[in-house]
C-alpha cells in the first residue's frame, strides 16, 4: 500500500503507466458525464432559441398587437394570439376548478378513510392512470363524452340557467357537444390522477405524531385533515397542483379533438374555441406561408413562457418541501 503514496517517478514504470491510464480514463469519464449534463442545459437553451428564431417574423410583423389581436385569418395573413391564449387559460382554470377539490378528496379518502386492504390497490390504480397517454382521453372525449354531453347534459344546463343573469350568458346555447366546457371537463379528468397521486404522497409525509396529538385532543377526522394535515402539506399540495396546471396548459391531444378549433372569443363556455396547443396541432402541417408558420411558432413561444412560469413556481414550492422533509424523496 505504501508504494501507491510514493511520487510516480519512484514507482516501477509499469505501475506508473497503469496509474496514469487510470487517471486519464477517470478524467475522460468525468468529462463525459459533465458533457451529458451540459447537453440537458443545451436542449433547454435550444428550445428557447429555436422558438424565438421561428417566432421572430411574427413578432416583428405584428408587434405587441400579436398578443391582443383577435383575428386569426390565414387568407389575409392577419394573426392575433388572443383567442388561443384565452382558450388555454380558461380551459386550464376550469379544469383545475374541478380537479383540485376532487383530487384532494381522493387523497383524503386514500390516506384516512379507505379500508386498509383496498388502500394499496386503489393507490396503484390511480398512479397507473396518471400514465395513460392523453390521446386516449381525446378519442374517448370525441366519441363518447361529447355526444353524450350534447344530447343529455347541455340542453339541461342551457334550460336550467336560462333565467339566471350571468349564468345564462356563460351557458348559452346551442348545444354543440364540443367546446370549451367539454374540453375543460376532459382535461380535469386527465389531470385528476396526477393531483391525487402527488397529494397522497405529500399527505403521507405528515408525521403520524402530529395527527395522533390532534386526535388525542379530541379533534374529528375532518378537523385533523383541515387544521393539521393540510397546513403541513400545503406547499406540496400547491406544488403538485401547479405541476398539474402546467400539464393542463400544454395538453394537446385530450383537447384538440373536442375544442372545436374556432378562433373567436364567445362568452358562452359551451361554444367552440381553441387553445394554443390545439391550434398548433391542427394547423401546423397545413400552414402555408412563412408568416403563418411563424405565427404558430410564436403562440408556441407564448405557451412556453406561460408554462415556464407555472412550472418554475411548482419547482420552488416542491423544493422547499423537500428541504423540510430532509431528503429528496420522490
Amino acid at each position, binding site marked *: 500500500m505504501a508504494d501507491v503514496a510514493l511520487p510516480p517517478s519512484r514507482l516501477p514504470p509499469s505501475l506508473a503507466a497503469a496509474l496514469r491510464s487510470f487517471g486519464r480514463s477517470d478524467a475522460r469519464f468525468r468529462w463525459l458525464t459533465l458533457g451529458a449534463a451540459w447537453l440537458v442545459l443545451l436542449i433547454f437553451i435550444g428550445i428557447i432559441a429555436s422558438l424565438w428564431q421561428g417566432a421572430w417574423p411574427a413578432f416583428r410583423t405584428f408587434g405587441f398587437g400579436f398578443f391582443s389581436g383577435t383575428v386569426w385569418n390565414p387568407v389575409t395573413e392577419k394573426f392575433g394570439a388572443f383567442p388561443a391564449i384565452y382558450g388555454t387559460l380558461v380551459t386550464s382554470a376550469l379544469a383545475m376548478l374541478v380537479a383540485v377539490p376532487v383530487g384532494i378528496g381522493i387523497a383524503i379518502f386514500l390516506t384516512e*378513510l379507505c379500508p386498509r386492504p383496498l388502500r394499496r390497490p386503489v393507490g396503484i390504480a390511480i398512479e397507473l392512470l396518471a*400514465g395513460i397517454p392523453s*390521446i386516449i382521453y381525446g378519442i374517448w372525449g370525441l366519441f363518447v363524452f361529447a355526444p353524450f354531453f350534447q344530447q343529455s347534459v347541455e340542453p339541461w344546463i342551457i334550460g336550467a340557467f336560462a333565467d339566471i343573469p350571468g349564468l345564462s350568458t356563460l351557458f348559452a346555447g346551442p348545444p354543440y357537444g364540443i367546446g370549451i366546457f367539454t374540453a375543460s371537463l376532459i382535461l380535469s379528468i386527465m389531470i385528476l390522477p396526477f393531483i391525487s397521486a402527488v397529494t397522497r404522497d405529500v399527505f403521507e409525509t405528515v408525521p403520524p405524531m402530529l395527527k395522533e396529538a390532534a386526535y388525542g385532543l379530541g379533534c374529528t377526522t375532518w378537523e385533523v385533515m383541515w387544521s393539521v394535515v393540510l397546513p403541513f402539506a400545503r406547499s406540496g399540495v400547491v406544488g403538485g397542483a401547479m405541476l398539474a396546471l402546467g400539464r393542463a396548459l400544454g395538453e394537446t391531444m385530450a383537447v384538440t379533438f373536442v375544442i372545436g378549433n374556432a378562433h373567436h372569443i364567445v362568452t358562452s363556455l359551451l361554444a367552440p374555441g381553441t387553445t394554443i396547443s390545439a391550434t398548433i396541432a391542427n394547423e*401546423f402541417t397545413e400552414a402555408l406561408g412563412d408568416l403563418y408558420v411563424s405565427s404558430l411558432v410564436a403562440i408556441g413561444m407564448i405557451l412556453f413562457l406561460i408554462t415556464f412560469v407555472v412550472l418554475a413556481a411548482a*419547482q420552488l414550492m416542491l423544493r422547499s418541501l423537500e428541504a423540510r422533509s430532509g431528503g429528496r424523496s420522490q
Partner: protein
Amino acid sequence: MNLRLYARRRFSNRMFLTLSVAAAAFGIAWLAIILGTLLVQGAAAMNLSIFTNPTASAGSNGGLSNAILGSLIMSVLAVAVGTPIGILAGTYLAEYGRHSRFSVIVRFVNDILLSAPSILIGLFIYELVVVHMGHFSAYAGAAALAVLVVPVVVRTTENMLLLVPNTLREAAAALGTPRAFVIRTVTWRAARAGIMTGILLAIARISGETAPLLFTALNNSFSSTDLNAPMASLPAVIFQYAASPSDEWHRLAWAGALIITLAVLSLSILARIFESKRMSQ
C-alpha cells in the same frame, strides 16, 4: 360540555368526509368508465389483420402494422439515444456535482423539461431538424422522442444513485479504485433496478406521445423502414383516423388506442415490479 358545539363538529365531520368519499367515487368512476369504454370498443375491433395489414383506404381491410412498426422503430431509436445521455447526466448530478451550483441549474432545467408541453418539443425538433433537412423524417420523430426520454432518465438515475449508501463508495475508494471505476462497477450496479425502472417509465411515456410526432415524423400510409422518410406511428394514425368520417377507421382508432394503453400499462407494471425488487434488496 357544550353539546351544540359537539353536534356541530360531528355534523361537519360527517359532511366533509362524505364529500371526500363522493369525490373519490366520482373521480374513480370517470376513470373506470374511460377504461371500460376503451376495453369494450378496442376488443370489439381487435383482430389479427390489424397486426398483419398496413394502413389502407377505408373499406379495403386495412390494419395498423406499419404504424405499430413505426412506433417501435422510433421508440427504440429514441431510447438508444436518450438513455445513455440521461444516465450520464444523472450520474454527474449525483456523483461529481452533487452540491455544485451548475447542478442546481441543470436539476431545475431538467425538471422543467420533464413537464414541458410535448408539442413544443415537436416545434423545437421541427426548427432544428426538419427545416434543415428540408423534409419530415423518422430521424426527426426519434429525436423528438429522445428529448422526452432524457429528463425522465436523468431524474430517476439521480434519485436512485443518491439512495446508494456512501459507505459502499468509500469502501471501494479505500481499495484504491479510481472514481470512474467505483461509479461504473459499484454505484451503478447497486442502483441498477432503479435505473431500469426509470428507463421503463420513459418508454411508457413516449409510446403514447402524439403531439411531438405530428410535425417531425409526420405520417405515412405505406409500410416504410426508411429512416430518412416520413414514418407512420400508432398515435399519429389514431389522431388521423379518429378525425375521419369513416366508421371502419374509427374502429381501427379504438383498436390502436387499446394497443397503446395495454403497452403503457404493462410497461408501468413492469417498472413497479423492478421497483419492488429494489425495495426488497
